[in-house]
């Protein structure tokens, strides 16, 4: 039986002549929480973008649940069950909180133009179901009392929660979180960590990009460290934290750096 959920093998990405990520191998097993750490510009977000099809990998293969997703478009990757959030919190700022989550579910509600124009009974029923489901997801992320607010007016922390709710609405089995606590007030971070763990307990595997080492050490099963696009360490949080190259990378030195 194939127990691997995501399998990235030997993936590289060039932007012109610039090597953004180089020969990365990474597997994420079902139910696992894997963190990716590394200094700014080490290729963490690029790796997410390659996996989700925003960037096409220059070489290597990506498989998800045994299926080759290397050359899929972003929407097709999501339909395989990979949800994601973005580093720059991406939400529909002008729409209501509830509508945001409804849009997240749209891939599961077949929308038909004819049904919409004639406002058929099945369309109305579908809309009601979608709304109900959206409320459930909002209460999962503790935003149920803010459903009618305009998303852009939420606090940064609530926007982060909403972005996770939108991704959850696509019903992923693997969630890629790009700095879920970035730019959030220190006192509010614990709440977001709790949410990440709650998502994981609900059976969704998580891959996390994070800078806050305390968070990474506490919640990860495994940690991957990147530097200049190369994987320099992989292991339990403890192993990676004491890894010589990782310490050096965070102090500004990097053995993988070109020319060194």
């Amino acid at each position, binding site marked *: 039986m194939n127990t691997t959920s995501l399998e990235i093998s030997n993936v590289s990405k060039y932007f012109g002549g610039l090597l953004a990520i180089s020969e990365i191998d990474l597997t994420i097993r079902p139910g696992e929480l894997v963190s990716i750490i590394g200094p700014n510009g080490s290729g963490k977000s690029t790796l997410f973008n390659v996996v*989700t099809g*925003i960037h096409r990998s220059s070489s290597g293969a990506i498989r998800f649940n045994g299926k080759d997703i290397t050359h899929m*478009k*972003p*929407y097709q990757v*999501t*339909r395989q069950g990979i949800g*994601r959030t*973005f580093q720059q919190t*991406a*939400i*529909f*700022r*002008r*729409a209501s909180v509830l*509508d945001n989550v*409804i*849009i*997240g579910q*749209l*891939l599961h*509600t077949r*929308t*038909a*133009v004819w*049904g*919409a*124009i*004639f*406002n058929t009974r099945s*369309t109305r029923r*579908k*809309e009601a179901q*979608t709304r109900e489901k959206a409320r459930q997801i909002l209460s999962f992320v503790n935003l149920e009392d803010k459903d009618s607010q305009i998303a852009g007016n939420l606090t940064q922390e609530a926007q982060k929660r909403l972005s996770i709710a*939108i*991704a959850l*609405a*696509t019903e992923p089995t693997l969630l890629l979180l790009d700095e879920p606590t970035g730019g959030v007030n220190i006192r509010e971070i614990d709440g977001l960590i709790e949410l990440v763990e709650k998502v994981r307990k609900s059976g969704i595997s998580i891959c996390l990009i994070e800078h806050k080492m305390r968070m990474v050490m506490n919640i990860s099963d495994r940690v991957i460290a990147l530097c200049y696009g190369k994987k320099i360490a992989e292991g339990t949080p403890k192993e990676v934290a004491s890894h010589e190259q990782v310490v050096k990378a965070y102090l500004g030195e990097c053995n993988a750096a070109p020319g060194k």
Partner: protein
Amino acid sequence: MKTIEQLRSSPWTAWLALLLIALIVPLVLGGYLITILTIVCIYAIACIGINLLFGYTGLLSVGHSAFLGIGAYAFGLIAIRFGLGFWPSFCASIIISGIAGFLIGIPALRLKGHYFVLVTLAFAVIINIIMMAWIELTGGAAGLAGAPRPDPIPLPWGDVIRFQSPLSMYYFILFFLVIIFVVSYRLINSLVGKTFIAIRDDENLTQSLGINTMSNKLVSFTISAIIAGIAGALFASYNTVISPDSASFMKGVEIVAYLIIGGAGTLAGPLVGPLIMIAIPEMLQMVPEIRQLLFGIILVLFIIFLPKGIAGEVSFLTSRIKSQPRNV
């Protein structure tokens, strides 16, 4: 009392009142006003189509004059050359503009931003040149004469509604405006409309949610082409003469300008824009050149100072006034 209160607060009351005005005013005042309002209705229909595409899906096409032309010529040619009646020609023209929109949308929508706008413009120019140059088919610059008016509709008590008078044509076109308005209202407020709006607000995020943005944009483009085609066919039937002038690419720019002035992305915008920008200059009997000049200045002023357009700014102000007590 309660029902009156409900009526006052229902948005439909205002729309019904507007419809009532649209029904009664030409009947009472008559004359030249009917002609102006008929033209306003035709432009309003085209604006609703552009509003779906630009206002709600975020795709700016300045080339929808092409679909006005395709709708008009398809209607006229089928009616005149094949001798088919009004309704078969009308339905065929709708289908043909839909197919044209679909086929043009596939390559055009691969491009984004300014490049997409340029392709729509180029398409409009090409279609216009074809209308001028393919003389055997279109009659060239002289155009086509003899596009039919709607067939008389027999009533159960023996009377017949004929569409020879300007007033009857006005009501006929107003009827289509109402239907298309309701269709666009339903679309915008459905999950389909939410998808369009999501693409407008953040295409990358929408795509990351498993939504095929390309096919949704194609649906929006095709619907807007169909609506523009209907406007074109109605104009052909109203005017009975079709010329390449009626589909010059400037018409496509005008439709977008009316929409921006009325308020893109609002329900009332496509009605307000043509009403103000066509009716007022007509009634002031403006010289065409001065009209063009003023039109340009007004458009620039709107884009700089009132980018939401008239309807957008009004609804913004009223929502602020309504929310005032809560803020205090």
